[in-house]
């Protein structure tokens, strides 16, 4: 029987989405529904003098104006607990209390008949502020005597730690080459098509929250905790979610305040963020500074890396992950796919008066990749080696390979990946052509970036972060109905990953049926088995593993029943094509449905010792420390020296995520990730002005790449199954976003290098930056008419 795993099965969710039949939180209508709007701080840092709601309460349609004062005793501040040494926790009140710490922070919640009147009402709330000095840049936050953003967070350091491998100094002393670079990365974010949205409905002592969330169970835990409720009296329903990318993994102030409002008013209350609110307050990503030193031999072998990592974590630490995530994960991955055993890091997560920073596709690792890839390019240029050759000399070659930070790459073929990448982009020929064009004034360049993607973190790996919860397992509940339909309920969520399809494929293969016969459910904490949702590329390994286990139980039972029906021995039977039959003789078999019917409807005919029904719920713990996909990207760009425009002409990716469940879905993940990476490299920037006002509060100014800015991507698959995970899978949802910025930086540097322009070590590479470089280093190239 052809297996479904590995096939390009069309996505089961697409007919619903493509015909506008999806149900998002904003589509949910309830009797008596009220609408919320938030009064938000327009100061980056200020003492709150008072909130005057008298005029607002008189606005037609207004039901309530709720301030922090009114929530006192009703809700507890959100507080991410992190027990690692060097970490400092802080409170995040549901509504600003005492002072405000970033522009957009919710100060009061307004409830009205419609969103229109809610906004009228919010506009009538008067808030008094006494401005405090604003701390925006990392350097300002770390300066002596810098204003404290939180009393509890001394030196504005949420997190600070150092590690060092013995012998590293000697490696620097003995080095033939030492590369030193400072790299900077802007703030940018996920900007999902569907912004955040929630409906809170308090009814008969029970809270139901429809939430655009990647993590319904985790959200339930958080909401229960901050509202002082038992976890079992809270139900979270995350219906279709229009993109998550990380920021919908945390519990936000608005959600807690909204639930408190519903409890107070006894009516359901909806809040759908508008684009400005989303850009202002939904977790931002990135914004790091790395200062790296790398030691190397004359042959180009990197022997040691030392890095200082600084992250601008903004005004609060998101729950439940805390503020140590980006910088910590960056620091684990700086050495990339390269064999560098001597490593030292000094890591700081810094409080600033900007929106909180937290999980966004490729957490921390985008910057880690930029850092090591810039080191590689720099070294190649100094040693006059081809950039691919230099990397080849440093790649990890044998597996398992334990890194300097304790990660264990379990399988792969990195040199082969690089070879395939060179073929896919036509490295040698394109380089030669670009050089020729360069002599005629056309600036084209090639770039490369390689990364290993740590995914599906194992329980010990997560446990070492000492958070409130260790999300080290996930669940699958499989039930075969009497008609042979398999119903699979999972602890994951699905917001673009195609889990409704891939999980059906996995279950279908275990049961020998068509994936169309598998219905996949998730997202409702009342019906889905307990799980940690979808983030960190965990779901295929975690829920796929649990599905294999649950489906295996059901399969064994069905084989036993079929054996009885066929008067054969279970060992001689096989499943496939919707039948259970004697191996090699399809005719001597029974239909899958017939076995299902017997198990559910005819207990009298079941063999002794077989309990009726076909159901199993299983948990799966991913292997520690996780699974490790590799991705190698090459970009080909053209730079216009007159305008500074960078056009991505071609893009190639070699991805190895172990056994592939559905190549089309893997390719979709890569496409989307690369698009976000192109945004990060060239366009996207959450810009604050000197007073801490976010300037980019709409899609006029926050520039997401569109289909016009993203080239077709040539994707090559390599499959090195993981020996550790069930199914051989490795998570892979983030690699696209990780490698693309460094690959494009590398390509732009190659192109501009033709004019003698020193290489960039930052993103985004804006038209203005390009033009400044050309004007400074090669003014004659400016005016070439094209």
């Amino acid at each position, binding site marked *: 029987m052809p297996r479904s795993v590995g096939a390009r099965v069309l996505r089961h969710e697409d007919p619903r989405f493509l015909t506008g039949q999806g149900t998002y939180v904003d589509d949910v209508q309830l009797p008596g529904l009220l609408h919320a709007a938030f009064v938000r701080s327009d100061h980056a840092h200020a003492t709150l003098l008072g909130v005057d709601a008298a005029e607002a309460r008189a606005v037609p349609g207004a039901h309530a104006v709720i301030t922090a004062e009114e929530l006192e005793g009703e809700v507890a501040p959100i507080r991410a607990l992190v027990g690692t040494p060097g970490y400092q926790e802080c409170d995040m009140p549901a509504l600003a209390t005492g002072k405000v710490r970033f522009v957009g922070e919710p100060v009061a919640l307004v409830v009205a008949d419609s*969103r*229109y009147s809610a*906004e*009228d009402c919010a*506009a009538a709330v008067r808030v008094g502020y006494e401005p405090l000095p604003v701390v925006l840049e990392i350097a300002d936050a770390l300066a002596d005597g810098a204003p404290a953003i939180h009393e509890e967070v001394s030196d504005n350091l949420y997190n600070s730690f150092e590690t060092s491998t013995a012998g590293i100094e000697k490696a620097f002393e003995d080095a033939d080459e030492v590369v030193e670079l400072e790299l900077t990365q802007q703030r940018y974010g996920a900007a999902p098509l569907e912004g955040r949205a929630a409906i809170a409905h308090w009814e008969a002592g029970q809270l139901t929250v429809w939430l655009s969330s990647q993590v319904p169970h985790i959200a339930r835990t958080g909401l229960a905790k901050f509202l002082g409720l038992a976890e079992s009296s809270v139900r979270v329903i995350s219906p279709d979610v229009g993109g998550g990318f990380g920021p919908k993994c945390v519990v936000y102030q608005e959600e807690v305040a909204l639930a408190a409002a519903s409890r107070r008013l006894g009516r359901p209350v909806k809040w759908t963020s*508008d*684009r*400005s609110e989303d850009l202002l307050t939904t977790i931002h990503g990135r914004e790091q500074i790395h200062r790296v030193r790398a030691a190397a031999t004359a042959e180009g072998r990197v022997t040691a890396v030392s890095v200082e990592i600084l992250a601008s974590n903004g005004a609060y630490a998101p729950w439940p992950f805390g503020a140590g995530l980006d910088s910590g994960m960056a620091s684990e991955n700086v050495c990339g796919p390269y064999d560098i055993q001597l490593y030292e890091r000094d890591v700081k997560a810094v409080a600033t008066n900007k929106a909180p920073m937290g999980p966004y596709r490729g957490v921390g690792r985008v910057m880690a990749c930029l850092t090591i890839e810039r080191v590689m390019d720099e070294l190649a240029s100094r040693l006059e080696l081809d950039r691919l050759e230099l990397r080849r000399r440093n790649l990890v070659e044998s597996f398992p390979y334990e890194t300097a930070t304790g990660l264990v790459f379990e399988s792969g073929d990195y040199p082969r990946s690089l070879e395939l990448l060179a073929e896919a982009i036509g490295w040698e020929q394109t380089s030669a052509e670009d050089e020729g064009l360069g002599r005629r004034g*056309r600036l084209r360049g090639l770039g490369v970036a390689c990364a290993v993607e740590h995914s599906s973190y194992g329980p010990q790996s997560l446990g070492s972060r000492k958070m409130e919860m260790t999300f080290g397992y996930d669940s699958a509940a499989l039930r075969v109905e009497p008609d042979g339909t398999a119903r699979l309920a999972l602890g994951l969520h699905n917001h673009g990953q195609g889990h409704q399809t891939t999980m059906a494929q996995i279950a279908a293969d275990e049961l020998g049926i068509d994936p169309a016969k598998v219905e996949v459910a998730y997202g409702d904490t009342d019906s889905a088995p307990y799980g940690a949702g979808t983030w960190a590329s965990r779901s295929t390994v975690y829920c796929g593993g649990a599905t294999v286990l649950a489906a295996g139980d059901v399969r064994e039972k069905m084989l036993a029943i079929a054996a009885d029906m066929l008067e054969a021995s279970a060992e001689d039977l096989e499943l496939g094509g919707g039948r259970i039959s004697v191996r090699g003789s399809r005719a001597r078999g029974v239909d899958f449905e017939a076995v299902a019917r017997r198990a559910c409807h005819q207990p009298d005919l079941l063999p002794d010792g077989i309990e009726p029904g076909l159901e199993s719920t299983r948990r799966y713990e991913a292997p520690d420390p996780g699974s490790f996909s590799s991705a190698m990207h090459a970009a080909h760009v*053209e730079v*216009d020296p*007159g*305008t*500074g*425009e960078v*056009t991505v*002409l071609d893009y190639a990716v070699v991805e190895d995520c172990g056994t592939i469940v559905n190549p089309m879905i893997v390719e979709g993940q890569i496409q989307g990730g690369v698009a976000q990476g192109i945004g990060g490299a060239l*366009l996207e*920037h959450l*810009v604050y002005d000197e007073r801490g006002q976010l*300037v*980019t509060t*709409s899609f*006029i*100014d926050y*520039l997401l*790449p*569109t289909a*016009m*800015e993203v080239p077709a991507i040539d994707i090559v698959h390599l499959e090195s199954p993981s020996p550790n995970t069930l199914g051989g899978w490795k998570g892979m949802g983030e690699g696209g976003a990780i490698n693309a910025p460094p690959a494009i930086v590398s390509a732009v540097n190659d192109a501009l290098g033709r004019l003698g322009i020193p290489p960039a070590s930052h993103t985004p590479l*804006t*038209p*203005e930056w390009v*033009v*400044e470089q050309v*004007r400074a280093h090669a003014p004659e190239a*400016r*005016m070439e*008419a*094209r």
Partner: protein
Amino acid sequence: MKPPVFDYHDPETVEEALDLLAEHGDEGKLLAGGQSLVPLLNFRLARPENLIDLNRLGSLTGIRREHGSLQIGAMTRQSTMEHSALVAENWPLLTEALSYVAHAQIRNRGTIGGSVAHADPAAELPVAFSALDSRVRVRSARAERTIEISDLFVTHLTTTLEPDELLVGIEVDPVPERTGHAFVEFARRHGDFALGGAAVLLTLDSSGSCERAAIALLGAAPIPVRATDAEQALVGAAIDEKAIAAAADAAIADISPTGDIHGSAEYRRDLCRVMVRRAIAAANRRAKGEPEPESSNGVID
């Protein structure tokens, strides 16, 4: 992002619309394609008490040639003009300018009159109409008048239209023989408002020298501006690299664009020079009937 309360009117005749305008004056706002106005309402940057919807006024739509001149009804959709063979053949500068306006979906709603009346200095059509020395036809309950495009724009989002006046159409004179056109701009993404651009019309004499030049700049000032010094520098000259460079330098001599996060004033000024160079070169090529060069990345939707 919801507008404050307003009253909505949807007149069926121009006369009715004019009466409503006369009645509400400063408190009334005309709604054409809504592609600029509705965002302003939702951001509460505009708070009119009355919206007067022009979408039922069929008499304001359509593209015709009358006595050689182009007549465009104010409510003509941008996409209609984009696909007009009459325009493409005789006023190709307009067709080229439209290819840079926003995205197809927006051009399906956005109108020619709305774009002109909105007076965004980064909008393409006002710049193209400036290069073409167009006129706008305006009516109120009081009177009817024609305004030269050079007298229309006052500053960013402001025109010389009175609060009770309706822009009913735009007139463009025929373009002389041996004229080459070019509309060139640079935006950070395809379809965004440009950081800078230029519209150029060059008419050559039989010897190939420049007989007449029109150069209008996009994003160079709070309104579309004509680079008259640069135009004069070209007239009578053979269009070579040197002449182009001199004209481009002259074009930006007096401009001071406003900078923002996408490009400083300095960057934009310099960009205008690059755009003028490229536009003159392209218009010259076209005037001479030379083939179009292979474009490196100019994908246009």
